[in-house]
């Protein structure tokens, strides 16, 4: 997706260099684990949104790059902890920090990354940025708690799902868009619009991610197909089928999913059932509607190259296959 970021290609490279340089401080194993994390790659959409949003204000790349890096550090910290919580061995096609170094190390390294992010953010001396990020951090944890509390529970509705994905993904993307603009002292009206754009796009991004968990191949995903289901995480395609599928399908799903002890064969059957059902087009349609909402927000922003980039990003998220 790098072609979408040509406006900020150079700055994104600098964010990467900043991250690499920044994580050099600390204990040798911590350094190695961060380099391992960085080399695993990732879309870097959060720093990209910080940089693009900052261009609506008084843009100063050297000022904004550390902030963009801090957002990626927060995201990395959550990934490291998520892998311990989910006992994940593979992420982005590479061994996770948890698999390589164990639970204790991963927890401490995640907390260390979070602390490093706060150290960078503090330099901006902005209570507005701090309040926003603190709120997002709290809500992200609430979302995660909700996710594990609702694992293997099939009585969920779409509202429960939206509650979770808003906290899991959308809030941090929305915050990335806002804090870039806040740090560059953009017009408050633009800050709010970008926040809404980020929220809608984040929702679309997560729904697409959840669909790809069923339809993409293992190599593209960088993790096994149906990983969410294996963790008991009930996503939109499953909720759709459980509520709108025919009676026979519903019964079969209930039987196969109603226990943490479901066999691998059962899960494989469910993945196949979902792939062949209406659940995938339905979920993609919902994601598409969120993208439309995001695009609508862009209409009130100045018509320039940055808005054009944000437009392309939204369209990409609608069509993405990885």
């Amino acid at each position, binding site marked *: 997706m790098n072609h979408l970021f040509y406006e900020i290609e150079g700055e994104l490279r600098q964010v990467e260099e900043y991250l690499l340089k920044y994580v050099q401080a600390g204990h040798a194993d911590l350094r190695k684990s961060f380099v391992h994390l960085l080399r695993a790659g990732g879309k870097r959409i959060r720093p990209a949104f910080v940089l693009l949003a900052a261009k609506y204000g008084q843009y100063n790349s050297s000022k904004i790059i550390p902030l963009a890096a801090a957002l990626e550090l927060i995201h990395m910290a959550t990934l490291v902890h998520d892998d311990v919580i989910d006992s994940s061995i593979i992420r982005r096609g590479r061994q996770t920090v948890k698999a390589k170094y164990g639970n204790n190390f991963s*927890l*401490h*390294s995640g*907390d260390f990354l979070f602390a*490093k992010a706060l150290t960078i953010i503090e330099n901006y001396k902005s209570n507005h940025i*701090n309040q926003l990020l603190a709120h997002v951090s*709290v809500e992200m944890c609430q979302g*995660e708690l909700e996710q594990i509390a609702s694992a293997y529970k099939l009585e969920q509705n779409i509202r429960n799902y939206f509650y979770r994905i808003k906290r899991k993904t959308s809030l941090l993307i929305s915050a990335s868009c806002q804090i870039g603009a806040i740090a560059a002292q953009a017009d408050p009206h633009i800050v709010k619009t970008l926040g809404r754009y980020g929220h809608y796009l984040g929702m679309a991004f997560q729904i697409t991610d959840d669909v790809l968990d069923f339809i993409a191949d293992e190599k593209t995903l960088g993790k096994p197909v149906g990983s969410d289901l294996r963790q008991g995480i009930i996503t939109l395609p499953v909720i759709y089928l459980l509520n709108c599928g025919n009676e026979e399908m519903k019964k079969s799903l209930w039987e196969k999913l109603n226990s943490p002890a479901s066999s691998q064969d059962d899960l494989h059957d469910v993945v196949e059932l979902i792939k062949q059902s209406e659940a995938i087009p339905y979920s993609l349609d919902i994601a598409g509607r969120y993208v439309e909402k995001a695009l609508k927000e862009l209409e009130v922003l100045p018509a320039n190259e940055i808005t054009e980039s944000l437009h392309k990003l939204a369209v990409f998220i609608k069509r993405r296959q990885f």
Partner: protein
Amino acid sequence: MREEKLNYEKINIIYSLLYFNLINQGEETIHLFAIIEIGGVPMLEKIVLEFAPEIAVIQAKTQKAMQSKAGHVATLLSLKEAPDDYLWLPSLSLVSAKTLKEPNTKVIYLAASMQVLYLATRIHWAIPEDKDCLKLKEQIQYPILLGDLLYSRFYAIICRYELDQYLAYLATLIGNIHQEHVLRNEKRKLNLSEEPHVLRIYSLLGETACYLAAHLSAGKTYLYETIKQMGNHLGMLRGVWEEGYDPYPYLTKWYRAWELLEVLPPGPGRECFQAILLGLGRKWGLERPPVCKDLRA
């Protein structure tokens, strides 16, 4: 090995209570009880009497920090030990401030944030390795997220009560604590003593709680440093006591803390510091050094 076993026990307690509540209260009000076994000997009775209203605010703030959204996962901290004991860190902040002047609102919220940070650290500290134990995965999920939630709430308290000026200092503290944990685990794997790293964590916590509270109380600069050193020593001694280490190699810290006490201005703050030192001394069968005056006389 002893600590490893203890950690497993702690996690088991967390899981059992969570399981109990899932069954008995349904999904609407799930309570997560995180039991942190810290110890049982009250040593801060004087402080509880001196700072009753402030401690009530800190306790309320801590309880609130432990709660998740109503109707989702409500979390509640249930601590086995006496409240005056588990609040040792915020108590140090209150006493430090009182040494210079009456603790203001900011000092109380700083103390509350230190308590939330401390609990987050303790919870993540207690997470064991899994080693292919699948059941453990279910047992550690909530405590990990509870620790994360507390760190986030700590950040929120700092921002909400305009304590941002200390964010860099506190973020560095968190980074250092977790770096010490990594070093400690490394030593453990090599069968070397992990004691210096554990005690470093306690002394960093004590030092920060005292120093920032003194700084907020705007006293004389030389007193900040004295109070900071006092916090460092008391934090370390607290760690020795809490972890059940042999106190003998650390008694110099106890004596040094008595010397620092002599530099502090007389008043209720200094008396509270003295009460802490006497409490620790009693635990280890030590008497007040003869050169130090009894401030209660």
